[in-house]
């Protein structure tokens, strides 16, 4: 009897040992590619995980996604420093960052052959040479607190009204939201990319009204939540995301129009997981991923085949007509002048 028990425990021990011995083999059998991709983090990431990462991993059990949070320019910096040994495979970045990275030769171009869904995009969202692809867009807007401002602002000029003194925020020019506002300003003040003088003159007048110059979405969100500001130039998706959390905030595209802001995905040149990276990018452009992303993050789809839910279609900018109506800046020219503008902004506006 006692021998029987002994034999049993020996057998159990042997089984456990065999289990341990086989475990590495089991892992090899299910060998997973780890694909490292960046995203913008924060409130956006919650939606992106649900809309894209989780369904993608379900559809491709052999690929494991590792998310790292990177802002656009941090991403370009990282691409530059990992050039000789690529660790992060796919970068999420806007036009400004992606075209900089393309110019520095850090991007692996794609084609409709490798990314079949590329053909379904609105033509506006294809870039020359397909160096990267655009997976979402939003519009630069004026966000406001509807409890404090009953009538939606009609024009960007409303920001200059004395009653809002000390109750507005303007994003710093070194952020994408700040840059978009500056580009709108060029339009409203009759300035151009080559002659920004009137825009800076207008900013000098606005200066005393500005409570602060935030750099990140989270800071603007906090300012609206705490009620420190009642109006600020922002983006459509972020305003809706904050509204969905119960904060009194609404947005409007004033009569001067808005800037088309896009988010892109760029594959790092020299990636060791090119096949998985292509699959990921293609998945992000698919109808189901784009629709889910619009539902969770309020970012508009770039895939022309997406049909939005009726209430969502009312909320977010969408469709070919809207895309056409938004201003498409000459990003190449803007990029070339951005550093000069920021330098001047540092001295004349925020100082």
């Amino acid at each position, binding site marked *: 009897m006692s021998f029987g028990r002994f034999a049993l425990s020996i057998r159990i021990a042997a089984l456990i040992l065999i289990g341990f011995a086989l475990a590495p083999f089991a892992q090899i059998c299910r060998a997973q590619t780890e694909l490292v991709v960046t995203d913008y983090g924060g409130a956006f990431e919650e939606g992106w995980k649900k809309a894209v990462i989780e369904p993608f991993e379900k559809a491709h059990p052999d690929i494991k996604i590792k998310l790292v949070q990177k802002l656009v320019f941090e991403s370009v910096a990282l691409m*530059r420093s990992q050039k000789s040994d690529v660790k992060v495979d796919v970068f999420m970045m806007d036009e400004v960052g992606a075209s900089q990275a393309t110019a*520095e030769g850090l991007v692996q171009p794609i084609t409709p052959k490798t990314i079949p869904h590329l053909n379904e995009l609105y033509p506006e969202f294809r870039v020359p040479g397909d160096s990267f692809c655009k997976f979402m867009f939003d519009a630069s807007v004026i966000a406001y607190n509807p409890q404090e401002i009953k009538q939606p602002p009609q024009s960007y000029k409303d920001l200059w009204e004395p009653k809002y003194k000390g109750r507005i925020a303007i994003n710093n020019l070194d952020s994408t939201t700040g840059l978009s506002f500056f580009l709108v300003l060029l339009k409203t003040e009759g300035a151009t990319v080559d002659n920004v003088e009137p825009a800076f003159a207008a900013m000098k007048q606005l200066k005393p009204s500005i409570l602060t*110059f935030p750099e990140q979405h989270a800071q603007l969100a906090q300012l609206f939540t705490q*009620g420190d500001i009642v109006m600020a130039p922002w983006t459509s998706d972020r305003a809706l995301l904050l509204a969905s959390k119960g904060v009194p905030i609404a947005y409007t595209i004033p009569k001067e129009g808005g800037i088309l802001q896009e988010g892109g995905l760029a594959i790092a040149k020299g990636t060791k997981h090119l096949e998985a990276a292509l699959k990921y990018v293609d998945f992000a452009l698919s109808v189901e991923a784009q629709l889910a992303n619009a539902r969770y993050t309020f970012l508009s789809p770039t895939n022309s085949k997406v049909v939005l839910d009726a209430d969502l279609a009312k909320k977010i900018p969408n469709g070919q007509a809207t895309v056409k109506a938004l201003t498409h800046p000459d990003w190449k020219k803007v990029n*070339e002048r*951005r*550093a000069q503008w920021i330098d001047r902004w*540092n001295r004349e506006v925020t100082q």
Partner: protein
Amino acid sequence: MTVSETKNEQGLKQEQTTNPRGTLPWFLITPNLLLIGLFMLGPLLLLARISLEGYQSGQGIIETWQLSNYSKFLFDPFYRQVLVGTLILGAEVTALCLVLGYPLAYSLSRARGLKRAVLYFCILMPLLTSTVVRTFGWMILLANNGFINKTLMSLHLIESPVRLMYNVTGVIVALVEVLLPFMVLALDTALLNIDLSLYEAARNLGARGPRIFLRITLPLSLPGVVSGCVLVFTGALSAFVTPTLIAGARLKVMSTVIYQQAMALLDWPFGAAIAFVMLVTIAVLLVASLQLSERLRDA
């Protein structure tokens, strides 16, 4: 800092009597030297190299050897003003920490037993929370619709909110809170080191409180004052999170200017050059104050 130095020296002397060749101290500092060499000097050399390169917007870094990044910083009144402003901010924070920290450190050094343990824990406690979290706490207190302004307004002491945030005032308040423990701990060490019999002797000779403080406590705690000031001053100069979150773009300090160049404009060479200017400034001030502390100890 200086107290431990004295102790180290005594330790060294003992060591030398038992180990005449004095190889043991070298042996002891080797791991540390290796670590610093690898992870501190290496990156610094890389940074120095980058600061001598050029940058062209839209093209990236150009591999050249040039000093133009340094001249761009030093000959531009805007950037010089940033450097001076940062030093002034550091000096203000240090002075406030000293004034607020001295009485606290004094009572800490006089406390005994459980009272000292509790007081010590209270002073250390803020260090257990990250600076980011503490800064967010200050944002909630200092904002226009924050706790302080709302309280003052509900008491009808003020009509409209007082601007406590988005300017240098808020940054000073928050930095003093963040850095105060370093000052108190440095002062406490120096104050504890004062021989209590000196006080008895002074009192026997008829000296009173203020005189005892000015003639005994203050002079003997000066090394602690210097090391506390060095810790707080360098901490305030290199602070990044607090100025960014509390003041935003309106306040330009060295750390935020470096960040903007390196991360937003991708001009690493210029960013590296500014970082080096800051490093050299801090090093010069550090060496000067350590020499001052040495002289104070000898006097």
